[in-house]
């Protein structure tokens, strides 16, 4: 610890601490331990806080000291700077601030540089001089200073919301129709493959190419029957489709009958046959849209 240390707390005590309270003493005045800063201290604690906040760290404090002394950064008198630096650190400590570890580290580093400068340097064998211990400190100071300047420059730039403003106007209240997702047939088939592999359909649910067109025809016939009560049987066939089309329609009608979806009515033998969809007492109540199944229509992505 340097002899020039400026506060009483850091100067080597002549006497060993006598009571536990001495351990927390920041000064001894007339043999009495002072553990709290007097309120009328000429530097109010708040001012010290401001002082500490003024520096952005140990390098910033060192730069300040060097500048305050108008010293050449390349020729720092390490001993002098070390003493001043420690004096500041001691002032901060005396004010009970939690000293950032960085400041103490810097103090230790300065001490190390000073001690190495005091020691005689061993003559080099290979002609490679040992680097001056101050060189690394200078490099870091220079490096820090250039970014400190860069920061000042950025602060001087005009900044949006402070120095200039982006112009904007109320957006139009136009509601864009939401584009529904596009689906490729490939996706549909992949989905189907999943169902098929889950529910082994090979036995009970085999659907062939033919039955698919029959299924389509079943839907079409149901649709045609939905509006009217009775439709003449013959109107369900389109002659232009040819034999195959007629067969498909016929099979579709038979399947609809089998599934109980339509009724075929003939008033008398030889009379026209009529077909109608089976109509219950109420329409549409089966499309129950009130359940709370949690399966989603959309992926969350």
């Amino acid at each position, binding site marked *: 610890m340097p002899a020039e240390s400026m506060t009483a707390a850091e100067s080597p005590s002549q006497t060993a601490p006598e009571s536990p309270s001495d351990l927390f003493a920041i000064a001894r005045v007339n043999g009495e331990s002072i553990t709290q800063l007097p309120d009328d201290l000429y530097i109010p604690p708040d001012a010290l806080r401001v002082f500490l906040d003024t520096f952005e760290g140990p390098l910033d404090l060192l730069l300040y000291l060097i500048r305050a002394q108008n010293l050449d950064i390349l020729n720092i008198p390490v001993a002098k700077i070390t003493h001043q630096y420690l004096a500041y650190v001691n002032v901060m400590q005396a004010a009970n601030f939690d000293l950032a570890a960085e400041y103490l580290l810097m103090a230790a580093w300065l001490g190390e540089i000073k001690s190495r400068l005091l020691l005689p340097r061993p003559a080099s064998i290979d002609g490679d001089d040992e680097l001056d211990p101050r060189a690394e400190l200078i490099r870091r100071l220079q490096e820090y200073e250039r970014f400190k300047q860069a920061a000042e420059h950025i602060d001087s730039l005009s900044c949006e919301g402070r120095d200039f403003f982006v112009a904007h106007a109320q957006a*139009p209240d136009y509601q864009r129709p939401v584009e529904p997702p596009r689906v490729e047939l490939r996706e*549909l088939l992949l989905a*189907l493959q999943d*169902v098929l592999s889950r529910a082994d359909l090979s036995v009970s649910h085999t659907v062939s190419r033919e039955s698919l*067109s029959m299924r389509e025809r*079943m839907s079409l016939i*149901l649709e045609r029957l939905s509006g009217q009560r009775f439709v003449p049987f013959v109107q369900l066939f389109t002659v232009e489709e040819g034999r195959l089309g007629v067969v498909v329609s016929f099979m579709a009608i038979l399947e609809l009958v089998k599934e109980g979806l339509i009724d075929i009515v003939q008033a008398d033998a030889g009379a026209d046959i009529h077909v109608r969809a089976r109509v219950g007492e109420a*329409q549409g109540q089966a499309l129950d849209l009130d359940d709370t199944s949690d*399966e989603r229509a959309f*992926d969350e992505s």
Partner: protein
Amino acid sequence: MNPDELKQIIEGALFAAGRALSIEQIQALFEEAYRPDSASIKALLDDLYADYSERGVELRQVASGWRFQVRHDVGPWVSKLWDERPQRYSRALLETLALIAYRQPITRSEIEDIRGVAVSTAIVKTLLEREWVRVAGHKEVPGRPALFATTRHFLDDFNLKSLADLPALASIRDLAEIAADLEAATHE
């Protein structure tokens, strides 16, 4: 300060605010000694209104004052700025649609039997709204459940002439191959 400078300040303030400013709020921008009276501000607002009569934004008076707003008829383009990324349909929806396509007419509980899980209302609703699926009738069993079938719109959207163009289920073994064929066919 001349009227042109005054107008530029009002114009800049209205655009910087991005909301309506009242005449009092505009007056408050100026030191008291140089504060224009409300009549001059009103006159300059009228000027600005005329300046922007043929532009993509317009000056409008609303309850709380004057504001610039984007002209309504460019809305369809401008609103694209906030387009959300298109969503994707869930696997559950695609499975339901595939089953309706292959097994129509089919009830919801029949779909559930095959899929092994319940079909949510949201999915049915989405398919109906998308007009890929319609209610083709009701099955005469207790509850009269709706029978779902695909629509012409579904065929159009999937580039199919008829359901018969869908690959037969029996042949869905090498699906990747089929999908590739289909893609080649639709891109011809």
